[in-house]
């Protein structure tokens, strides 16, 4: 539990590490907006290849970015499938009947069992999942013998549906890659300080960006501590016979409450002690203070900002003509 990574920051060298966090935030924001302005798959593919080239220049391993994509893979797959199913305009690319007979059922169950067994034995979860999905399609398509359990139905993929789903998935891919690069190459402290400085002009309307950033950085600092604590309480409860993994919903609810109540009480005491510690070290909310972490904006930042502005301008032009 000691090594929970905050954010995804991985120390390294390369050009993205040398940029000011403010530059990175603004540039990522601009490029994200540009990506939303693009309208054809072709434009998006160009954007994707530019993004990949930038990653290579910045010496960021594509493998790490792909790992960052893993948690939202499911989201991407569902987006893709929903787009295909829901969009029924234009000419159909594929259109053919599907069957569901007694044999279909048997084959499906077989495929399911094989998938689960292999998934337990092998490590290629995603590949296996795709193989399983593919075999479901093949079974529904070709196993037409035996007594039909339901009437044959029509399966169709429309051109616009396919295009739309590819479009949406690539767009998501680019956006997620961009934000991964940001969090991968920027320390959480620098990120919060960058946000603080960017939000600073809001002081005029009464928004205290410094306290806001301090709150974020303290929250980041306490995430591992709180995880640790939850772990300890869970162990303590478990040693008194509580079981967090099994039981009925009602029992589970009880366990969760037995975890939450002490955690809130501890958090309450903690916040009071923390406030005392901060005050005793002369912290006054909203007062001016110097900073140990310094941001410096140099020519590289100018270049990066100009680049992102050009990208944004370019995509606006493409949108208009």
């Amino acid at each position, binding site marked *: 539990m*000691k*090594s*929970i990574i*905050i954010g995804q920051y991985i120390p390294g060298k390369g050009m993205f590490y040398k940029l000011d966090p403010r530059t990175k935030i603004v540039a990522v924001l601009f490029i994200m907006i540009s990506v939303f302005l693009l309208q054809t798959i072709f434009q998006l593919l160009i954007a994707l290849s530019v993004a990949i080239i930038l990653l290579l220049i910045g010496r960021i391993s594509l493998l790490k970015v792909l790992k960052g994509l893993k948690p939202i893979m499911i989201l991407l797959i569902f987006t893709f499938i929903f787009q295909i199913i829901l969009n029924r305009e234009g000419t159909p690319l594929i259109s053919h009947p599907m069957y569901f007979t007694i044999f279909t059922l048997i084959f499906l169950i077989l495929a399911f069992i094989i998938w689960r067994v292999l998934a337990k034995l092998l490590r290629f979860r995603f590949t296996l999942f795709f193989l399983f999905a593919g075999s479901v399609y093949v079974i529904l398509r070709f196993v037409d013998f035996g007594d039909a359990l339901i009437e044959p139905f029509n399966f169709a993929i429309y051109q616009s549906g396919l295009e739309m789903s590819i479009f949406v998935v690539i767009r998501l891919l680019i956006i997620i890659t961009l934000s991964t690069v940001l969090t991968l190459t920027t320390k*959480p*402290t620098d990120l919060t300080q960058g946000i603080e400085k960017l939000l600073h002009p809001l002081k005029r309307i009464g928004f205290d960006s410094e306290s806001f950033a301090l709150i974020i*950085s*303290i929250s*980041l*600092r306490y995430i*591992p*501590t709180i995880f*640790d604590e939850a772990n300890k309480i869970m162990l303590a409860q478990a040693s008194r016979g509580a079981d967090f993994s099994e039981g009925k919903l009602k029992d589970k609810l009880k366990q969760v409450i037995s975890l939450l109540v002490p955690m809130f009480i501890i958090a309450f*005491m*903690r916040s009071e*002690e*923390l406030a*005392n*510690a*901060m*005050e*005793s*070290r*002369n*912290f*006054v909310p909203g*007062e*001016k*203070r*110097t*900073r*140990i*972490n*310094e941001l410096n904006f140099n020519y590289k930042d100018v270049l990066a900002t100009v680049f992102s502005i050009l990208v944004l301008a370019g995509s606006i032009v493409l949108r208009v003509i």
Partner: protein
Amino acid sequence: MSYIEVKDLTFSYNEKTNVLEAVNINIEKGEWIAVLGHNGSGKSTLAKTLVGLLEPKEGEIFIDGQILSEESAYEIRKKIGIVFQNPDNQFVGVTVRDDIAFGMENLCIPREEMLSKIDFYAKKVNMLDFLDKEPANLSGGQKQRVAIAGILAMQSDIIIFDEATSMLDPFSREELIKYIKTLHKDGLTIIMITHDINEALLADKILVMNKGKVYAFEETETIMKKKEIFTDSHLELPVSLDIANSLELSDKHKEIREKLWEYALIK
């Protein structure tokens, strides 16, 4: 005038019962004071009033001749720092460096000066190799040492330890005590709240609190001979001192008494 003067200090959380009552203390510069007293006797409350975290109901506190008030609290906290019991609840920074810097940032000290002070004081508490480490990767004792460095970096010369060793394992506890000894040698004024009498023996003077009042405040050697002070305050003397006190005050036992004292101090 003493370096720290507490005059007729009375404090209450709820206006009804006084948690501190007519407390009078004088502490000289460079003294090491141990504060003993059972749970709820008002030790932490006294510590918090000394750094201006709580406002007295009655009475006055002078630090280095300056009266403590809402206006002067900022100035006075440059002189006096406090290390609390729970190492986790006072670590503000994301890294050791950030945490040592926190107090200095609040004092608006220029960055360059902060950087050199951080190195200097981190070295002093032997944490120089850990400057980039996050608190999750530090032991309790290391976090307490970082807290000390943060206070020293603000140029404070009075440090209060409010049961700062009580959540540490025996080894880290001993180590922290070693650092406190060095601070004392360097001339800092130390107020160490503890419930460990063996720890208290290291101090120049011992202050015993009982139900919000100063029950006794005397030189360590003198107070340790008055068994009734400890029994009255539900505190237990180390066995060796108990034996030493029960020996006749004749020259015959002098050597044994001295040995027993030595034994208590080592332990």
